[in-house]
């Protein structure tokens, strides 16, 4: 029996280990190492209505146990995705989660509407209301519960494809935001996006990144991410997709114990392009070693009675 099979919002995933948005492109870049049908789902780069060019260089900088990025959601736009990338993902039998980015509520709505012709091919839409690297939209939508509720309600009305709201950690109370999203009837929550940060070059005495600020990801943010999953999964009923600094199967298991029903792995793939396989294997091993029959037996065990 497949101990890792997960059914979330009506979709069957072979395993709960997904790529995360922005670290896996549209699935082709790592095809020599990870066939896209072998991970639970491909979560695409944040995709907007038209092409976005992204931020000036430098866009990435390594920090202690983490990295800052300020890509600025460079992407070729939704039409390009539907025409060039979706067919590849369909042909390769991938489960597809499209990460959606917009500057305005109307842009989000238009993208979600355009996707409705693909209800069988796009398995979920992950609404990115948490990108710290764009000046308009992105995180501005995700930090106020009223705006979160309003935007997601609007999108939910036009979508037959399940919606996942991707939450920002750059808020005072993530539980409040999570509840606002849940009350807008979204099907799932994913957390966390990157933490906003900066690096300064002591030689030039100026910020390193072209965009000045960047988003911190990698092992450095894991305890923060884990805590937010631990809190939100207790406060909400919808399934939680956890991410942030997952480097190996031990990290992944911590997220399941904290209450995640699936996980996404991002920064780790830069270090080890085969990390998804190793995590899948490690979770299976853990379940066997501890005599669990299915992944669902361990979800939220850290807080369940």
């Amino acid at each position: 029996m497949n101990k890792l099979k997960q059914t979330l919002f009506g979709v069957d995933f072979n395993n709960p280990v997904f790529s995360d948005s922005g670290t896996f492109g549209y699935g082709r870049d790592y095809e020599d190492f990870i066939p896209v049908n072998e991970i639970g789902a491909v979560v695409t780069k944040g995709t907007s209505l038209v092409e976005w060019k992204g931020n000036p260089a430098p866009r990435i900088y390594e920090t202690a146990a983490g990295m800052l990025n300020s890509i600025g959601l460079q992407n070729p736009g939704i039409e390009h995705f539907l025409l060039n990338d979706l067919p590849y993902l369909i042909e390769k039998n991938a489960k597809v989660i499209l990460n959606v980015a917009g500057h305005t509520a109307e842009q989000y709505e238009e993208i979600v509407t355009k996707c409705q012709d693909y209800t069988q091919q796009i398995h979920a839409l992950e609404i990115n209301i948490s990108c710290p690297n764009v000046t308009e939209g992105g995180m501005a939508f995700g930090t106020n519960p009223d705006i979160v509720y309003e935007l997601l309600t609007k999108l939910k009305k036009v979508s037959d494809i399940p919606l996942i709201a991707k939450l920002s950690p750059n808020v005072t109370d993530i539980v409040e935001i999570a509840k606002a999203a849940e009350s807008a009837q979204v099907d799932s929550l994913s957390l966390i996006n990157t933490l906003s940060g900066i690096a300064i070059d002591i030689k030039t005495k100026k910020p390193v990144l072209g965009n000045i600020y960047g988003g911190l990801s990698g092992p450095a943010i894991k305890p923060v991410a884990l805590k937010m999953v631990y809190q939100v999964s207790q406060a909400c009923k919808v399934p939680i997709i956890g991410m942030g600094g997952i480097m190996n199967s031990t990290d992944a298991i911590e997220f399941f114990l904290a209450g995640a029903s699936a996980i996404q792995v991002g920064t780790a793939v830069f270090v080890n392009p085969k990390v998804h396989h190793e995590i899948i294997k490690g979770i299976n091993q853990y379940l066997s070693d501890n005599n669990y029959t299915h992944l669902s037996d361990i979800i939220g065990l850290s807080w369940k009675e």
Partner: protein
Amino acid sequence: MTKKMLFDTQILTNELICDDVYLMKFKNEEFAKTVRPGQFVQVSTDFNNQTFLRRPISIFDVEMENNIIMLLYKVVGKGTKYFSSLKPNDNINILGPLGNSFSLEHNNPLIIGGGIGVAPLKYLVREMNKNNIKPDLILGFSCAEQAKMARLFNDLDCNINICTDKKSEYFHGNSCQLAAVVLEDNQYDSIYACGPNIMLQNIPQVSIPTYVSLEEYMACGVGACLGCAVKTTVGSYVHVCKDGPVFEAKGVILNE
């Protein structure tokens, strides 16, 4: 595109060439057979060393008979310091070959390298030699000690002109100044260059195709993260790891 590989390999040698520059060798048959000049690898670093992202290093040379791959690198920070601490038989993990490669379609090229930027040029010259092309090289360094790197090119069929910023036995000046002199006396059909950005910006403007090999900070090295962006003259961004590292100079903005 060449198929990317991911493998652990034992270091054969890791020897000091001069100052802070090392030559590392490892062996891999499939890799040696597929890698093209201008390509690079992403070398694993050590988490215990406060680094975790891989570091991009060019292919310096390939010894076909023995399937030996060579990397020439300069210690500039934590990652490269860690590389220099490795001993024969220590393991490293290699992701590659990555990126595009130098065009081999020109017959009379001028090749310009500055400092550690000479790294991707040796294997380029070796492949040119296979096509019976014997290029002129300008190798510029800060000082005579750094210029010891140029000795590593002695087994190739090419004319090497060395210059140094500090006064030495060589031409006194930077590689672009020497290039200007050489370009006056010769008819070339192309220029290939790798070195610090400031050098690439100052390559004499000529009407022949000019190829530059660029550097940017990298995370993935395979085109997935869109981190290693360089602006093009039409205002879009290309990525050094996938669209490069070799670009036609006229298409990219070197001082965004």
